[in-house]
């Protein structure tokens, strides 16, 4: 009986497969009507966990998030999603990625994230965002619904935008355009030798020069007068940063580099800084706290930088920062593993972070750092209905199973290339 049902489902699936001809599924249409998610454990990401919760949403917005046990509602006209035993979370946010800008690392033609030149504040990642990337459906299958693809390379690599992961085209996928530019702070140390037999790491002699270049560039941007010099794309692109309308994402890793970068930024009153990378943020926790900036850590799944470092230093760094009152998030370099974002948060819990902070690390805090927290990052009334329903704890790969996902109230089709291949070969072995 069960087998028959299964075959029926499979046949249905195979026909869908043929119809779609192995393309990514179509983005969802506008949401039909008001919907109620009932009896789920709701993790609002504001520190609240509602065990028997109800979430109502309409026209793409959350109407209500409450404890269902002691509230009476009239749900006439609502579509009901029975979610007993399930968990509801805000759509996860991957705040610094290469999503849509790179398809196959080893195939140059598929790479669109690195422009030529040291100072490129004017280049914009949004327009290269490939909504048809096969990586996108695979990533959202694990609950990641928003991301900020960033330009890389040079000193100022360009301007990034926040995208959602269910668009027909880049304009459609834009959540917030040109949220900030990316400044890659010079490195203090340089590797010597060659890769198979690395020599010692030496001090980078050009560090001071490069820092000066940055200072000069910003000073000239501040002095930019379009009437005098005519249009200059680079200088124009800098104006919003100087006014604080665009964020300045500073990529810096070593303690001293971070300190120097924060010093630099503090000279400009209006600049809004977010630190990215920050491998060694633990060295300068006080300084970061004082500067009041958020930190998007590089992937936690990396080795400590020095043999004598605590083996778990990268894992416990989120807790060290969060406990000091710093907003922290986490990113992935490249697309190879970025779908594992929630498990990074889970791993941080294993090394000292509390559950509430761990969830914020991949929802509310990155939303705040990207300037989209008025709509995204937590489950609150009037915010966008962008959320996921998981069968179990989403931070643990042992239990995480994303059953449904919604972006602005529209339900996302969670079929992806990998699931299609799975079904195909399950069919083979029947």
């Amino acid at each position, binding site marked *: 009986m069960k087998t028959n049902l299964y075959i029926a489902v499979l046949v249905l699936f195979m026909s869908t497969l043929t119809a779609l001809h192995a393309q990514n599924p179509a983005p969802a249409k506008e949401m039909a009507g008001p919907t109620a998610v009932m009896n789920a454990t709701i993790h609002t990401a504001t520190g609240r966990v509602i065990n028997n919760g109800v979430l109502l949403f309409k026209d793409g917005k959350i109407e209500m998030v409450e404890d269902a046990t002691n509230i009476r509602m009239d749900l006439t006209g609502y579509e009901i999603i029975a979610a007993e035993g399930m968990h509801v979370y805000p759509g996860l946010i991957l705040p610094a990625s290469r999503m849509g800008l790179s398809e196959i690392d080893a195939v140059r033609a598929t790479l669109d994230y690195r422009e030529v030149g040291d100072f490129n504040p004017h280049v914009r990642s949004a327009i290269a965002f490939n909504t048809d990337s096969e990586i996108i459906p695979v990533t959202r299958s694990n609950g990641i619904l928003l991301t900020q693809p960033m330009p890389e390379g040079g000193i100022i690599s360009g301007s990034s935008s926040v995208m959602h992961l269910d668009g027909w085209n880049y304009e459609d996928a834009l959540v917030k355009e040109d949220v900030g530019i990316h400044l890659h702070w010079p490195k203090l*140390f340089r590797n010597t030798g060659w890769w198979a037999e690395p020599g010692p790491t030496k001090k980078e002699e050009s560090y001071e020069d490069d820092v000066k270049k940055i200072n000069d560039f910003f000073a000239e941007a501040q002095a930019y007068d379009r009437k005098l010099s005519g249009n200059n794309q680079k200088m124009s692109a800098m104006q919003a940063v100087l006014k604080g309308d665009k964020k300045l994402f500073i990529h810096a890793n070593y303690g001293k580099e971070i300190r120097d970068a924060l010093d630099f930024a503090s000279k400009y009153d209006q600049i809004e800084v977010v630190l990215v990378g920050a491998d060694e943020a633990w060295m300068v926790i006080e300084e970061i706290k004082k500067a009041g900036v958020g930190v998007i850590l590089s992937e936690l799944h990396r080795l400590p930088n020095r043999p004598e470092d605590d083996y778990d230093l990268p894992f416990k760094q989120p807790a060290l920062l969060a406990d000091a009152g710093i907003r922290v998030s986490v990113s992935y370099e490249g697309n190879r593993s970025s779908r594992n974002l929630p498990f990074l948060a889970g791993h941080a819990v294993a090394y000292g972070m509390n559950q509430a902070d761990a969830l914020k690390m991949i929802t509310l805090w990155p939303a705040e750092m990207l300037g989209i927290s008025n709509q995204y990052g937590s489950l609150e009334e009037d915010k966008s209905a962008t959320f996921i329903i998981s069968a179990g704890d989403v931070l643990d790969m042992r239990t995480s199973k994303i059953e449904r996902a919604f972006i602005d109230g529209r339900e996302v089709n969670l079929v992806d290339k990998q699931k299609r291949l*799975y079904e195909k070969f399950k069919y083979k072995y029947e």
Partner: protein
Amino acid sequence: MLKKLLGIILLSVLTTSLGAQNFFPENGVHDQRNTTFVLKNAKIILSATQHLEKGSIIYRDGKILEVGADLKIPEKAVVYDLEGFTVYPSFIDLFSHYGISASKSVRSRGPVYENPDGRAAYRNAAIKAEFSSKETFEHQQDSAKKYLENGFGAVLTHSSDGIARGFGSVVLIGEENPSRSLLKPDGFAAYSFLKGSSTMTYPSSLMGSMALLRQSLYDAAWYAGQSEYVDFGLDALNRQAKLPKVFHADDKLTVLRAAKLGREFGYDFILTASGKEYQQIEELKKVNARLILPLNYPKAYDVEDPDDALVVSIEDMKHWEYAPHNARLLSENGLSFTFTAKGLPKGKSFLEALRETVAAGLSKEEALRALTSRPADWLGMSTELGSIKKGAFANLLISTGDLLEEDDALIVSNINRGNIHSFVPMAQLAAVGSYEGAWDEDTFKLKVSRKDKKFNVSLQGSDSTQWKGKGEITALGHISYSFKKDEKTYRMQGRLNADRNYELSIEDLQSGGRIQITAARLETGDQAESSSQEKETEDEEDKNDKLGEIWHPFMAYGKAERPKAETILIKNATVWTNEEAGILQATDVLVRGGKIAQIGKDLNATADRTIDGKNKHLTTGIIDEHSHIAISRGVNESASSLTSEVTIEDVVNPDDVNIYRQLAGGVTAAQLLHGSANSVGGRSALIKLKYGSPASEMLIPNAPKFIKFALGENVKQSNWGESNTTRFPQTRMGVEQIFYDGFMRAKEYEAEWKKYQSLSAKQRATAQAPRRDLRLEALVEILNNERFISCHSYVQSEINMLMQVADSMGFTVNTFTHILEGYKLADKMASHGAGGSTFSDWWVYKMEVQEAIPYNAGLMASQGVTVAINSDDAEMGRRLNQEAAKSIKYTEMPEEEAWKMVTLNAAKLLKLDDRMGSIKVGKEADLVLWNENPLSVYASPDYTMIEGKIYFSKEEDAKLREKIKQERIRLTEMMLKEKMKGKPTQKGKKKEQKIWHCSDRGGLEMVHMHDHLHDH
């Protein structure tokens, strides 16, 4: 008696006349002198153990005729009175390239696969065994001077180029005529693992170098019995078989590797050491290593800036402290060594470093032995070199004092085969002292002082403001000095008279008036300025008392005591048995003698240690089927697509902190694989992660043999850049042919050997033995089920192909590793009998992983394939439990089955499941106690043990962190003290850890590939 004496005299006369024969053309009249020289009244250090407080040495024609306390001084002789001086036998350096011009290295564009040498050379250009030092040696004035100044008289010199570096010779440094300086020409041989100027791509890794040296020695053995080919490289290797051999081991671990490789051929290499030998004394004792120690003691690190200081590793800091103690510690442990002047840090003289060595506690006797008699002995030249005795070369050092102890002691002259090289004029030395004179109702002091080789002249009157001026002393001991006194300017000249007083003539510049004064000598003897000397010695002693611990390994998270096997009782744990019994609740496990002794409820056993396992999960240790940690200097021998001759076992690196980090992730064993650059890569090393043990003890004893194969993009060099498009194969089509060709040849090779071995002993005596081929040998082992394949693979076509090759050749592919498309042909794998060791969810990094899916493991398992999850990555290796758990998420795999993928199944794929991989009485106690369900993201190991020894625990880790911190503080303080004292320091260098991945190409040709793809 008389007859005998007469005989000796006659003999010596005979020797003299022969030795003096001069057949060199002369410009002018014949000028042969055969002068006899006498050094008398000197303190004579005859050898390391024998001294003469006062005695004489008589030598002629470069050879010592007599040494003794009461010698009759010949009437006709040049006699030097060396009252107050010390004479040493001159030093010997066994590691030198003196007088041999370095080859020019020409870097080629793109890879070179064949030897460009057009001559009848060996097929690999790094084997330069035919190189003759005697034919190329030339006297080199500048470098000779440096050697002589530091006391050296003879060196064993050889080429610095190549793996087989050819013949070496002993040469006398201070004899300008090569015909007289070359001793035992080409009487030695030299080797290394460095390929030098060879432009050939092979070998591109350390293990390749080792395999090449092995293979060439086997080739030489074969060559000796054949007559079809001429190969002067092999010919030379054969001629070197019986000669003493030096080996340039260029790092600490290579010393052991070279010693071991030498032993395989019955060679007892004399090994240049790294200076870090104190870190591996036990291992060196085991191979009874003969070492040439460099005195390369690092300067203190500049740790003033806390940010900069952080990049200095604890290992480097500790080594700074220990480096001068290297020789002492080796000596205390009965190891034999000599010293070399190579490797000295810039600005430091050999003698300075030598004194530092003695100050650190090495006995003077042992230091002298290491410089004189021992090297002479190892060269087989004890009669000629290394001591002051009759018949030996007159290789003598004249010193102002104890060279090994006194900071101001100076080598005045280095006599080499009778040639006198002086560095300081004797007259100047004689002038050193204080003199007193009286003038103009004032007494003044004249002082001639010396600091090292610099002399200073000063005058001082009773009034300290007077007499101040400037002066100098000439080589003949004459002084000149100008000064002001009572507003007048004076010039002064002085010469030493026979009574060693100064006769001074002082001239008043204005008036031209002169007066003559004699300044009488106050004290005698050489008085060099040595103000800080006493204090220094105190500090040194201070330092010895407080030397830090020696850690195993000598780096972060090393321990003073290696872990010991304990009887351990783990109580009340949730036990994941990986056996029929499944997961047992509230169960005890007893570990004894390194094995699992008992499993049950409420066990009653006495134990050294009882661990409360309540609310914890006990599992068997994680086994990583595919790892590249703990490998030295190249994970790929990328110069050929078939390199089954190389083996990772040669290059296991026990000093890799990633071993410790993985213990902290619950890993206890791993297969260290060759990379994926070649269709047939190298042989594997199966290790347990016994951090702190030497490489030889990490290797799993009696482990089955494995080898890496590879398919796809890495093998066909798809992502290697434009310069790598010439190596066969460049397509998947070519890969198949590499396999067929290899195995066909292996079959023929085996048949050839079988035929030879079937011959009777008599027939064999006349028959030529086949050439031993390490490459084909490994393939023969595969065909005979004695070696098993782990094959890097991605797409289904090539997997299909290799199984077909195997089926037709009669072997089984044991494991497909990575096997990202295994799900597409899991049925075929199951029927072939291949296992699959895969990543949980990696993809997008290259073309051939586009169809990789996280459902792969589950799908393969569903078809009966034995499935493991591997890391191929030092970082991911420490959370394989999470990687296994992903199959629960993606394919609803039962937890026990998921867990087996990183334990029992990996053991099965490595054919170790009879001893590891499950919790069963009698199996090795490689266990991990987790604080949570091990498949949960929230889990981490509290304890990791291997064979009943605890290698990691959170508790101990906390202590080690504290220990590292305290050790850093202690050493930082010492280094700051050095800097404050004004001693030279160096800027910090961060230890870069090379993390190998399987497509990392150990090839020199890749140097310029700046964009290194971390593809797998």
